[in-house]
């Protein structure tokens, strides 16, 4: 599990394990990084767990932060709700260094939570978790009629799509006219 620096439960940073005498090389102590979401609650996550996220892995791979530097510079993900980031961190910790199973039954069942989780996971580029989440979203419409699917996924009707398109065109036209008028004003 992740440890949080503010608010939620906290766990002591993992101590480097003592290498057995027979081992040829001593184990390298695990490094930790810090992330926070919209709620500013900081989560301490091991580099091993963060490897699931291609985005964060790319960010940290060349930093070479010391523990203090990492603590002082948590990665801000202001576009991700705190509880969603907690779910992501938990998942990364649970699957650290393990092959991912074909199914994951611990994903949120509530539509809105799952929706936010998908966006976060896509942003953080966690491929396996994105696959599970998308499968879960696809599963929501099993055995449903097109009308029921439209309600679940809030798919606009053709009439709504047409109205939105018309509105977008109108807006684009107005913006273009505004730009032309501004350019003419500048020329004068």
């Amino acid at each position, binding site marked *: 599990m992740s440890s949080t620096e503010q608010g939620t439960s906290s766990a002591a940073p993992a101590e480097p394990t003592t290498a057995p005498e027979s081992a040829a090389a001593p184990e390298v102590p695990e490094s930790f990084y810090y992330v926070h979401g919209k709620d500013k609650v900081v989560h301490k996550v091991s580099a091993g767990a963060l490897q699931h996220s291609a985005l964060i892995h790319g960010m940290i791979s060349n930093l070479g932060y010391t523990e203090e530097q990492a603590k002082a510079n948590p990665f801000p993900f202001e576009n991700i709700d705190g509880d969603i980031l907690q779910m992501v961190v938990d998942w990364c910790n649970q699957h650290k260094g393990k092959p991912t199973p074909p199914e994951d039954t611990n994903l949120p069942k509530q*539509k809105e939570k799952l929706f936010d989780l998908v966006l976060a996971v896509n942003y953080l580029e966690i491929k396996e978790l994105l*696959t599970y989440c998308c499968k879960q979203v696809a599963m929501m419409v099993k055995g449903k009629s097109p009308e029921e699917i439209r309600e679940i996924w809030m798919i*606009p009707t053709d009439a709504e799509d047409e109205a939105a398109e018309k509105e977008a065109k109108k807006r684009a036209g107005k913006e273009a006219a505004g730009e032309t008028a501004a350019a003419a004003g500048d020329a004068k």
Partner: protein
Amino acid sequence: MILSKYPYVVQKEILDHMKYSELFLLSFASKNMKKLIKSSQMNRFQSVSLIKYTCDHRGEPWVHVHYGNNSERIMIIAKHKEDKYGYFQLKVSGKIIDFRSHPRKYRNIRLRSIENSYYPYSVASYPPSEKETVVQSIHNYFLGFFGNSMEYQWEAKYLSDESFYIPFIPQLQNVSFHIMIQMDQNFAYMENLDNLFSLSPVLKSIKLSTASTEPINPESKFYQAESIEIKQLFYASPVSFHHFKGRQLSITGVGIREDLIEFVNRWKSGEAFQKLEYLKFKVFMINPLHNGILNEIGAKYIDELKQPPAHTLPKV
């Protein structure tokens, strides 16, 4: 949850997890959704090699999508019946058709999960008078949805206890028709069959088991089928070789008929049956004419200890 707020890659990933039958239903949610399915699933649709309608003696087709070495049942088209789960209506190629989903029945409720509560395919239903138009509308929708570059096949076959049936052959574009029928001496049945051939498009293949000796009308489109496979119970046959216009002919029977000599020699000389590329006779009993006929057609004996020449039969 607003699906359209997801980036395209996420929308694609979600659709990647849906079965063909689910994508079919989803395509009715909106025109934009149909466009999204077609663009995001282009590669998947390109892997579809065949869409096959399989009918039994009731003429209620089961539709399967074949891809790679797999297939998925996407729909059953069946006569309308009351259903406690109710129907929903879809406008398919301009025609309103009743559909219902197909829940699974579980003896052990603990086995039930979201994923396996339903059979993935839906049931399209038709009132008896609208059977053909319903099938046509669905097929036309498939042509637009999956594209017309793949093969569409219609197969009508009998079950053992319902042998003497008249296959249901609708008028459909871009479809090859394959039927499996049995004939007996029943005159009315023969007449109905004759009628079927006259109204149907030219068939791709016919597998015929026959105990009838009543000849098939020489003008019948039966003889235009690309491939005919006959199993005949009696020496006399309802099929006259001379009218055959297809590519492959296979006959399994009780003996070799005399008219075979003329047939084979005309074929070998190029005088007739230019389209014929494969002829097979399998004989249960050797009749007195056997060796004489084989000599007349110039048949060669193959030493059973030697490897016979291989011939690859083009698939029809």
